[in-house]
């Protein structure tokens, strides 16, 4: 068969590969490492996540009534180490990847944790 004919058949068979995203949603497959999300109620302010984060995206700092846990999604490299090391399984790696934002501030995720006072301060 002539080369051009084979080519035309190939083109017709290939059809249209482009998907109409975002009109049609295109969810990431299971196992995809997307946005890490914290369940504040489970967090014990252990700090392992902040220590192990390769890009320093997670900060755990004192706050008026306990601690402030903050993640900078612009620094996050979506490696999943935070969830791996959390002793309280408080961090979930979701499949969310649509994280584009109009402002830098929007890329920060913050939760406030009420932690009990340290033992040596209690009467």
């Amino acid at each position, binding site marked *: 068969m002539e080369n051009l004919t084979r*080519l035309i058949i*190939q083109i017709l068979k290939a059809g249209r590969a482009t998907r109409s995203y975002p009109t049609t949603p295109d969810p990431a*497959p299971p*196992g*995809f*490492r997307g946005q890490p999300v914290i369940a504040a109620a489970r967090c014990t302010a252990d700090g392992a996540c902040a220590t*192990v984060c*390769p890009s320093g995206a997670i900060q755990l700092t004192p706050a008026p009534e306990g601690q402030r846990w903050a993640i900078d999604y612009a620094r996050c*490299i979506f490696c999943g180490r935070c969830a791996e090391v959390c002793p309280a399984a408080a961090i979930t790696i979701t499949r969310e990847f649509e994280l584009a934002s109009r402002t830098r501030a929007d890329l920060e995720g913050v939760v406030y944790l009420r932690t009990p006072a340290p033992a040596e301060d209690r009467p």
Partner: protein
Amino acid sequence: MVLPESPRPAGAADPQVLAAAGVRAERLEARLPGETRWRVPLTDLPAACQAVHQHLGAPLITVVGNDRRAHDGTFHLSYLFSVDAEQRWVAVEAQVPGDQPAFPAVTPVVTAAHWHEREIQDLFGLEAVGHPDPRRLVLHEGYPRAYHPLRKDVPAHIPPPVPAPHPFVYPRVEGEGVFDVPVGPIHAGVIEPGHFVFSGAGERILKLEARLFFTHRGIEKLAEGQPVAQGVFVAERICGVCAFSHSTAYVQAVEALAGTPAPPRAQAIRTLLLEFERLYNHIGDVGNICAGIGFAPGSSAGARLKERLQELNEVVTGHRFLRGINCVGGVRRELTNLPHAAAQLRVIKTEFAQMVDVMLNSDSVRQRLDGTGVLAAAVAEAFGAVGVAARASGSRRDSRIYHPHGLYPALAVQATTRQQGDVRARTEVRIQEAQQAFRLVAEVLDRLPDGPLTVPLGPLPAYHGALGRVESPRGETAHWVMVAPDGTIYRYRVRSAPYANWPVVPFAVPGNMVPDFPLINKSFELCYACCDR
């Protein structure tokens, strides 16, 4: 490649070779399998390297500069050479006094050392005396002369000085009607930055000067001080499309240093994913060749298939670029959807074959590819080119064969070679390697061993360089790691395949016409990010 029988123990020839060159060499402690180390007086350095390179027939792997002044007042230089036939390497080491920062250049006798020594000049401030091309390489001319960031007394976390505006110094071509066409570093497309100056008279290119290192990010400095386990995340971000090769070379170096190789299942998974990486790169690159000549059906088909392969990466590992899977000691997670992957790969293999069939049977494609961008075998060999570019010019070197890793020893990997050295040859090497990759993937899937995914890492001896080598889609990538007593990275040297191959691209261009340059460039398909770090 058939490995000749070697009746003598590994390294037996080395002392005679060095003594014959009149070099006083002291054997240093070797800890890694396949490693031999010789310390020579600084003045004997070029002679020792020449002896190993020529008389052992050992190509240069990499050169590592290291600031050890805090320990012994000197900078250490290590020149590593690969003795392929014996599956080992030889390191020739010398020390440069901290107060006399100069060393005799090895480049005049081992051409492949040229960029390594210029890099040491820029990043350590050690003068390579006698280097035929001592221009700035990694740090462009606008950086302050006294700024040598890989010295330990330059703090890592202070931003580097902003380079002042400066001209690019390059050898000019003079003559009636000769003009220069400067291209880049900003290009008309979403591609990496590099600067190319063509000198031509009419359509024919007389000379090409290339300037890279616009994406030099200081990755090696960034890695210093990181816990060894974190180093993986640095390694796999050196480049996008070689991410898995880089992370594998890194973890292999660390595991070799610890004496604890990854368990069989992890080795098999790494082998599988190295071939996944090869597949999406090679098939995408063949599509890019078509883009370079305006053969739209080929470039569309290539892009379609590459996208399907990257989606496969995501479905099997969770990441389109295969990041986040390797860890020191093994792999972090199990693979998923393998039966689906196997079925998809069979379909993609057929469609790729159809795409290639139409492409190579097209007269217009043949006219552009045949005889274009010839890289002479002698040039490839002298400059230490690796991978597809070298094999298309006659080399039989494939590190899956001479530096067995993963499951490769159990798979019959063939080195794919061509002799013509033109764009067509490099395209054919990719096509054939992709076909072999489909077969290797099927074989690995057939025999994935059971067992744990990781082993605990053994103790890491301090201040001992470890080498990891992997065949990335573009060729051998070599990672050298030295660890401090506290388990953090002390020195990290990455010599990617593009670093070895970029220097030979300008040799393949003269004599061709200007529109052939993008095609020739695409036929090498080298990463700038891998090279620049």
